[in-house]
């Protein structure tokens, strides 16, 4: 535990404060307890006179905010199993898996996650356990159970609501249990009984959910894998669109600049989850190096590649149009294991972001989309000292984000060898 009167001076070859400006050469950050109390050029950061200061110097290293992954599923295993199977596991096992994923992600440099849908109370229980000191985790921004229609995407996590009244009741129940935001599956998805090309909730239901959430100061994020669901979400005043795929009901994929324009105008965040499909492509390609893929795998590789290319094209256009694109891995859903958020950050380079822009999408903007930017996301006076130290310079080479040296959470140096 950090003590309130303990000072720590962190000096770095480079500091990326993630406020959008240039890299600060030879910078320093002064921490008091869990907070940043000063940041700037080395010579300008002066600890209070007579105070005991622990000084840590990171030569040739870059200091930046802890990463913020705005889209995880802590229950997931990332071994390709479908949610239809995953949800059959008992809550105790899903909670154990959530704790394991949380630890893995934290040790990989992610100090804040937003969980976009878990079964029953599993993630809320995990947070209780963290508060009790039973286990370690990044800061948790939690949806608890996602809002779904009967048979809709993720329905087996515990909510199937029909009509504005039931929708409002479920939002109130979630808020009562302590969730931080409301996740809505506004379209179908990989859930077997859902219809991915059609919207799920009707507009009046969407309105009720978003309105009720906003009343309590909770933000909303909607899973949208078709155009109509995006329109509904926008009509309802959604805060984040997840996936945001331009599918028509007949399966046609046709980009809709009018919808993109609305996203920009309404200031809605887009979490495009680009790497999720690329992770699968990488796995199949790696497998094909050692053995012959079977016909189903060849088919899967081809369709996934095709979908991924379309995705890059779409999201590139959205980025160019000025959409606020935020980084959220969607791990450990489908085939994407946790602890590999950097791969999703890297995927933002392929839609035209500079390395610095990709970093902002995974720190500052991502924190904004999670409504936690008053605490994390940038290195600024008054914010929590969630700090990542890496070898190299990720503002030049984004993959330097993999080269973790140290991680601080609320001013504490994380012991990445703590397996208990």
């Amino acid at each position, binding site marked *: 535990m950090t003590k309130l009167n303990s000072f720590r001076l962190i000096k770095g070859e480079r500091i990326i404060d993630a406020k959008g400006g240039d890299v600060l050469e030879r910078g320093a950050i002064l921490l008091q307890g869990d907070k940043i109390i000063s940041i700037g050029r080395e010579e300008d950061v002066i600890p209070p006179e007579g105070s005991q200061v622990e000084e840590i110097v990171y030569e040739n290293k870059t200091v930046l905010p802890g990463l913020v992954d705005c889209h995880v599923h802590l229950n997931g*295993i990332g071994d390709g199993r479908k949610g239809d199977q995953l949800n059959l596991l*008992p*809550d*105790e*096992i899903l*909670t*154990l*898996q959530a*704790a*394991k994923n949380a630890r893995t992600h934290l040790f990989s440099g992610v100090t804040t996650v937003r969980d976009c849908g878990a079964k029953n*109370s*599993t993630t809320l*229980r*995990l947070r*209780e*356990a963290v508060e*009790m000191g*039973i*286990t370690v985790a990044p800061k948790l921004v939690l949806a608890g159970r996602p809002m779904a229609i009967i048979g809709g995407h993720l329905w087996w996590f515990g909510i199937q609501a029909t009509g504005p009244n039931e929708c409002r009741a479920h939002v109130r129940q979630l808020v009562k249990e302590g969730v931080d935001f409301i996740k809505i599956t506004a379209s179908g998805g990989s859930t077997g009984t859902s219809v991915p090309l059609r919207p799920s909730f009707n507009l009046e239901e969407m309105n009720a959910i978003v309105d009720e959430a906003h009343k309590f100061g909770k933000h909303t994020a909607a899973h949208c894998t078709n155009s109509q669901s995006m329109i509904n979400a926008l009509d309802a005043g959604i805060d984040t669109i997840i996936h945001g795929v331009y599918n028509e009901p007949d399966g046609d994929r046709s980009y809709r600049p009018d919808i993109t324009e609305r996203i920009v105008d309404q200031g809605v965040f887009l979490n495009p989850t680009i790497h999720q499909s690329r992770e699968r492509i990488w796995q199949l390609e790696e497998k094909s190096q050692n053995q012959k893929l079977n016909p189903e795998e060849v088919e899967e590789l081809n369709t996934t590649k095709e979908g991924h290319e379309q995705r890059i094209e779409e999201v590139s256009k959205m980025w160019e149009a000025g959409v606020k694109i935020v980084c959220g891995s969607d791990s450990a859903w489908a085939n994407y294991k946790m602890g590999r958020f950097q791969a999703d950050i890297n995927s933002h380079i392929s839609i035209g972001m500079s390395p610095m822009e990709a970093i902002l999408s995974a720190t500052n903007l991502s924190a904004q989309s999670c409504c936690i930017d008053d605490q994390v996301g940038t290195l600024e006076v008054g914010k929590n000292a969630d700090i990542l130290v890496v070898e190299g310079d990720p503002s030049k080479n984004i993959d330097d984000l993999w080269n973790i040296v140290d991680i601080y959470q609320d001013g504490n140096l994380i*012991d*990445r*060898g*703590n*397996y*208990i």
Partner: protein
Amino acid sequence: MVQKNDFKLIKCGNLIDCTGNAPVKNGAILLESSKIKSIGHESNVIPPEGASIKVYDYSKYTVMPGMVDCHTHNNGFGDGRLGEELNLLADEILTLQSIRNLRASLFSGVTTIRENGPKNFTLINLKKASNDYMVLTPRMLICGRPLSIIGGHMGYFGSEVTGIDEVRAETRNLIKQGADYIKITATGGSTQTSFRYRHSFNLDELNAITSEARKFGKLTATHCVSTQGIVNSIKSDVDMIIHCMFNEPDGSNKFRPEIVDDLFNKGTYINPTLHVVRATIWDLLNIKERIGLTGSQEKLLDDRKRDFDIHLNNCTKMIDSGLKFITGSDSSWSSYQSGNTVYETECLNMAGLSNMASLLSVTKEAAKSLDIDDLVGTLEIGKEADLLVLNSNPLEDISNLWDVKDVFLAGRYIDRGSEKSLKSIRQLRPSLN
């Protein structure tokens, strides 16, 4: 996961196989995947020609079997809180605490545990996750939930039953749900609604449970902190008596040599749980040193000291009578934290077991008491390669069991993490005494 034809050669400066034989200097163990393929003096352990072999050089260390702790409660915190408080926590939280305790045990060198009383499905589901390699744990033998009478000890964990039909039904339920053995609270205990000095189940109920368990080849163990519970357990052919305290209904302690004779004749295993009493004493002494004790705490300290001395003395007599004493820590119950099993072995040593007998009480004999000696407990050809590597020799001083260098589970080297995190596992002795 261990690959087939995956060979490891473990060089052992001092090899204690825990069969009871003398240690071997310059020994070696050849592992094939999870099992011991060959063992003995290094000159006699010859790896197969042409096989690729990973060598672990422990020629400056002692190698022995991983420890077997026949009595654990993994839901707990070992911070002195009552079971009544513990059981108010959500099952998911108890599960997360359990995995933390299980890792602490494993990292401390305990490669097999028996779980003696968790809530609801917490350990049943945790064991499923472990079997599917989702979490790393020692080998686990679980009771599911302890059988209790209404208001009896640990009844709050979920299995309160009455009458021979209900006790049979719940025994069957537990076995269906995955229980490896049946734990019964045959007397009251620390549970406030229970009667510590009285037996709980009637003899016909106890008989129904043990006969039902035996029918399915499951062992039984009874919690007994008063004499009538021990007497009933002997009549019901219980396999292990836990605590084995000779308290009379009026609270007095009267050692009963004739009961000890019966236990000897039946070959019943005794798990005396000495340190869990001492852990409370240590806890109070720590508080005394830090902030001082209240009047009621002072009284509790005196009572516990007296309980401990009486029990220690009785244990010495039972050991002298030839009873089979087993290390079962009872952690993380009461003030006894997981990963500190060795304190109990030290207590058995203090009660009169020789260093070798103390060592066997946490290896070979413990495995026999759990009926898993075909798998673990000694280092012999065909057994599972659960290994404990120590910096020093426990036959010289049993406390050297603390001095862990490395742990192997089923032939797999266990990455135990940072020194700092490992150090946090050990509970410290109070400086006062």
